[in-house]
């Protein structure tokens, strides 16, 4: 579970990019975080993952504060950044071994996990190649395998569909569904409204640093009393 409490952030004095954000992502839920460019999605994700400092408020990952108990909080999530160009000079297997060492996964467990996940994502034959020789989708997959290796309760993904081919995108969505099915949390930001509409249990829409809506697509239609598509509703909400 991810709990965001009264979160605020300013880059310049007096100008809040995130303004008193409150949000709770429950166990077993896929949560889509939507918003126009510059709305504060990436800033929020960076604060949840400890990449960016927090001005006010707190973020709890399974009850552990990212401010006061950051190492424990970080053990409870896996993060897939928007840019998959990571450790390009390492071989896929070296990267996975490194991640397994950081999360202190035993030799037996890591072999089992790597075998299982690489087969699932069709990466068995390329693990011994350097990451720089991978395509965009393969890089994304190796990061996802790395993230899933320590079996985190919470999965956080920043724009995960960008640059993926239909097959990779489908595999990723399947993985997110399976992860949530095991009573885990999936939190991801996206621009692709169709994905959010079909995949998410709930969505949150952020605009100019403020959370303007949280709920299901049905809730949204009820709240705005309009039977229109998510895309049209999104435009209406964020244009105000």
């Amino acid at each position, binding site marked *: 579970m991810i709990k965001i409490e009264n979160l605020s952030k300013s880059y310049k004095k007096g100008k809040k990019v995130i303004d008193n954000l409150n949000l709770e992502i429950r166990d077993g839920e896929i949560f889509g975080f939507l918003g126009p460019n510059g709305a504060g999605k990436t800033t929020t994700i*960076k604060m949840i*993952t*400890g*990449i*960016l*400092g927090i001005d006010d408020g707190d973020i709890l990952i399974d009850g552990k504060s990212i401010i006061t108990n950051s*190492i*424990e909080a*970080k*053990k409870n999530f896996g*993060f897939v*950044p928007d*840019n998959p*160009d*990571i*450790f390009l*000079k*390492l071989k896929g*297997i*070296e990267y996975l*071994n*490194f991640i*397994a*060492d*950081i*999360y*202190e*996964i*035993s*030799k037996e467990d*890591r*072999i089992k996990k*790597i*075998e299982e996940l690489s087969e699932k994502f069709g990466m*068995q*034959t*390329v*693990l*011994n*190649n*350097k990451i*720089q*020789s991978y395509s965009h989708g393969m890089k994304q997959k190796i990061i996802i395998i790395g993230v899933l290796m320590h079996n985190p309760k919470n999965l956080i993904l920043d724009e995960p569909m960008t640059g993926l081919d239909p097959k990779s995108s489908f595999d990723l969505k399947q993985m997110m569904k399976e992860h949530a099915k095991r009573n885990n949390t999936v939190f991801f930001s996206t621009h692709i409204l169709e994905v959010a509409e079909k995949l998410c249990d709930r969505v949150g829409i952020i605009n100019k640093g403020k959370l303007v809506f949280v709920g299901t697509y049905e809730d949204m239609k009820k709240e705005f009393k309009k039977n229109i598509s998510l895309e049209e509703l999104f435009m209406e909400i964020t244009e105000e």
Partner: protein
Amino acid sequence: MINFKKVKDLTIIFLRDSYQNMDIIDMEKHKLNKKSVYTWLSIILCLTLAILSYKIIKFLVSHGQEEIFLNIYFLILAIVMLFQTVLVCTNIFYFSKDLELVLHFPIKSTELLIAKFCTLLYKLYISECLFAVIPISTYGLLTNTSVLFYFYELLIILIFPIFFALIVSIVMMFIMKISRFIKNKDLFQVIITLLLMIVILTMEYKILGGIFVNNQQVESVTEEQLMEKIQEFNVRIQESNKYFLVINPSIHILNQINIYGIFKIIKILIINILMFGLFILIGKLTYLKDILKNSSYLISSKNKKTNLEKKCKKRIRGKAYIIKEFKSLFRNPMFFMQCVYPVFVWLITLIIMSIIIVPKAQIVFANEEFRSSLGNISFNITVVYFILGILQLLFTMSPASLTAISREGKKAIFIKYIPMSFFRQFVYKGIPQIFINMLSIIVVFSIIYISIPSIGIKYILMMFLLAILLNILNSYTMLIIDLKRPKLEWDTEYAVLKQNNNKMFQYSFTIFIIILFMYLNKILKDIDLNISLYITGIIFLFFIFFINVFVKIKQDKIFNKIT
């Protein structure tokens, strides 16, 4: 026909792509920007260079041997230009990412080649501005020459590096042609640079061997004889400088200021034009073909199932992190060439110089009269600081810690979201630099142990320990600088290393350490050597302890630039 407008535009694009503004000039007020830290670092560097040049030249002028300064300085400048060109030219001409962005434009190979050459030349001019302008101008001031000296100085600074850039570029194109059988792009880049480096080092060995040829026993030395020896040495340097074609004419112009100097300038220009013609001719035949060949290289990858039982090893977190750091540094040809190669080059140079000079020096120093003429030379704290000072200069050759964070680029955020404390990551990230510097320490102390056995193993070990402490201090200070001013937004690996202004901090830190040694030498020279060494050790330990406590307490703040 070459379209020079296109060449100019391309050059500007290539340069802008890698340019980092230092904000030394306040563009609005057209004044020096006193708020920029780089302004002050530049002032410190310029002042240090000016003071050092002033002292050396003044000493030589007082002995009537000022000519030797230009002879040696131009030779050093030539070697620096050659090394610098070797380290960057393959990347600029063949492996930079900007090539992929311009190859689809209707540009002739010669236009691209000239634009790339201008980019290379620009980098050499920056080095010249830093290291040549002040010493040569100081020489002009102290030898009371006319205004014409500065006019010639300007012309020479402009045309001097062209010859060296052309030589290396032509050799590089030849090597590129004959080494195309290597299919791994990373390996290819390292091998090309290695081959070029061997060419330069062989040349260096020949030249130094030519300078220090005298094996005669020194019977007795009077001041006149010493001057004679210096004169002889000077002539041998001039002889060696002949190999570089443009050095002696340049020195001649600056030594004999008259209107005929312009003919020597024309001579250098003709040499450069002929070389440039050859460069264009070879480039026209091979350049574009070789670029296209390079861009189609793939990183060798054989798709086969991995034996996980064999490949999966559990390591402790610290060890895993350090191995990852080493792999990222050593497997990237650009990072390897900029952070590790220069250290190897300087160490090999040092070894070559020791092989050539030490036996001759031992013969000279074996003579008692010569020793007594130099006064009572004994091993003391001044010698210790001199050796540590040389090591400090060698530590400056590698920016491994200074770019440890910047090299990560946008993926540096990884540091922030893995469950490992920033302090531990800080400690691990400094280790590659410590390892690289250890090579310098081992080589320097091996040379000292072999060439001056009279120092004794006890003091060599004590100095060795001090050098290790200095090494740790260097590595972690540079890491803090990179954390405070990281360059995370970059497209080319070349930009993060060569356009990293933090290098100024590294130079300034070296100046600070040398000044500290001079001060400590002043206050400790009359104290027992053992106590002086202990005090120096305690000072280093204090600094290292301070850095540790500072990073431990302020770790969140120190890492807050990584977002």
